[in-house]
C-alpha cells in the first residue's frame, strides 16, 4: 500500500512518498515534525529554544534532543571558524539550520521503525530516501538548476541516503557569514549527499556560509559528496557523487 502526502510544517512544504506503508504511518512522521516545530522553533515563544534563549531553562533542564541539536550547531560552528553559527550577533538563538535536517531525518527514522522500507521524504528541497521505488532502480533525485526553477543541473541516484541543497535562487535572499555578519558571496548552490540528512543539510548550509572556501571544506567532510555551483557557474563535483546516468 502506498501513500503520497504533502503538508506544510516548519514553514516548509513537506512531501512524503511512501511506497510500502499506510496513511497512519505517514501521519506519525508528520506528527513528529509538528512536535519538533513546537519544541525547537525560535519563532514560537513557548518553544524550548525560546525559553532557553530567555534564560528560563538551565543546561540541566534541556531535553536530550535539544542537547543533540545544540552540540551539532557547536560542532559546525567550530569546524567553519564561526562562518556557520546558530547565534548571529544581535540576534537570538536560531538553530533552524540544524533542526530542519535533523527533524526530517528523524521523521524518516519514524517511517523505518514503522516497517517502511521504500520511501522518499522531501522537506523544502531536502531529501531523505529509503530502499528503491522499483526493484533495481534508485530514487532519482533531480537537483534544481540554480538559475532556472523548472530545470535541473544534475540527477543523483540514491537508495538509502540524503540529499540537501542550500542555494540563493531569488534576489534579496541572503545567508550571512557568522564571522563578518555580512551576506555571503562566492557560491550560488551547494548540494551535499550523505547517508544522514542532518549531516547533509548542515554541511550544505555551512559550506554556503564559508563561500568559496566551503567547496574544499564540504568535499573533505567524512561521508559527504558534493555538487557545488560557484558564482561563475563553474561546477565542483566530488568523484564519489552518485550521478544518475540517464
Amino acid at each position, binding site marked *: 500500500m502506498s501513500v*503520497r502526502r*504533502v503538508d*506544510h510544517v516548519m*514553514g*516548509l*512544504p513537506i*512531501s512524503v*512518498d511512501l511506497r510500502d506503508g499506510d496513511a497512519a504511518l505517514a501521519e506519525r512522521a508528520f506528527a513528529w515534525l509538528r512536535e519538533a516545530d513546537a519544541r525547537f522553533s525560535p519563532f514560537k515563544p513557548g518553544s524550548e529554544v525560546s525559553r532557553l534563549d530567555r534564560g528560563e531553562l538551565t543546561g540541566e533542564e534541556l531535553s536530550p534532543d535539544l542537547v543533540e541539536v545544540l552540540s551539532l550547531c557547536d560542532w559546525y560552528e567550530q569546524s567553519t571558524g564561526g562562518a556557520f553559527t546558530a547565534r548571529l550577533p544581535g540576534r537570538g538563538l536560531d538553530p533552524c539550520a540544524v533542526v530542519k535536517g535533523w527533524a526530517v531525518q528523524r521523521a524518516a527514522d519514524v517511517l523505518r521503525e514503522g516497517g517502511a522500507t521504500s520511501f*522518499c521524504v*522531501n522537506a*523544502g*528541497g*531536502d*531529501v531523505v*530516501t529509503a530502499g528503491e*521505488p522499483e526493484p533495481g532502480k534508485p*530514487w*532519482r*533525485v*533531480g*537537483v*534544481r*538548476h*540554480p*538559475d*532556472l*526553477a*523548472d*530545470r*535541473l*543541473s*544534475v*540527477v*543523483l541516484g540514491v537508495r538509502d541516503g540524503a*540529499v*540537501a*541543497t*542550500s*542555494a540563493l*535562487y*531569488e534576489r534579496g535572499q541572503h545567508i550571512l557569514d557568522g564571522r563578518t555578519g555580512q551576506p555571503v558571496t562566492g557560491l550560488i*548552490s551547494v*548540494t551535499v549527499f550523505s547517508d544522514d540528512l542532518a549531516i547533509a543539510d548542515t554541511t550544505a548550509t555551512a559550506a554556503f556560509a564559508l563561500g568559496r572556501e566551503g567547496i574544499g571544506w564540504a568535499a573533505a567532510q567524512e561521508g559527504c559528496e558534493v555538487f557545488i*555551483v560557484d558564482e*561563475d*557557474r*563553474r*561546477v565542483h*563535483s566530488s*568523484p564519489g557523487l552518485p*550521478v*544518475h*546516468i*540517464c
Partner: protein
Amino acid sequence: MKRAIPVLALSVAGLVPVWLYSPASGHEGEISEVAAPEAQQQTAPRSTQAAPKSTGAAPKTTQPRQQQTTQQQTTQQQAQNRSVSGPAVNTSEGTVQVQVVFQGTKIVDVKALRAPNSNPTRTALPLLRESALKAQSADIDTVSGATATSEGYKQSLQAALDGAR
C-alpha cells in the same frame, strides 16, 4: 513514465532562457579545463553537444546551424526522434522560440525556431549548462533545491511531481 510528462513539458519552456545564455568567447580555455572530468559521463549523442557550442559563435542567423544538426540526425537516429516546440516567449533580448528534439525521453538537441539577431553577452560557463542539458533527459522522482516558501513550492517541479498543482 507519467511523471516524465510534466517534467518534459516544463523543460521545453525552461530551455528558452538557456538559449539566451551564451558563453563569452574568452572562456574557451576554461571550458575544456573544467569539462574534462565529465567526459566519462557523456552518454548523449554528438548532436547534443552541437547546440550549446554553436551558441557561443559570433552572432548569426540560426539557419545554418539547423541544417547542420539535421544532417547529423539524418545519419544517426532520425527515425526515433520527435520534436516538441515551445511557445514564443518575449524576452529582453527579443522573441525566442525553441524546439526540443527527444529521442525517447532524452533531450538530444535544442533548436532555435526564432531567436534574437544577436546573442546576449552574459557570461556563463557551459559546464553547468552541459550538465543541465543532460539532466533534463532524466525521469525523476523528486527535486532537491531550496523551496522555502509555499508560493515557490506551487511553482516548483516538486509540486508537479506531487501532483499538487
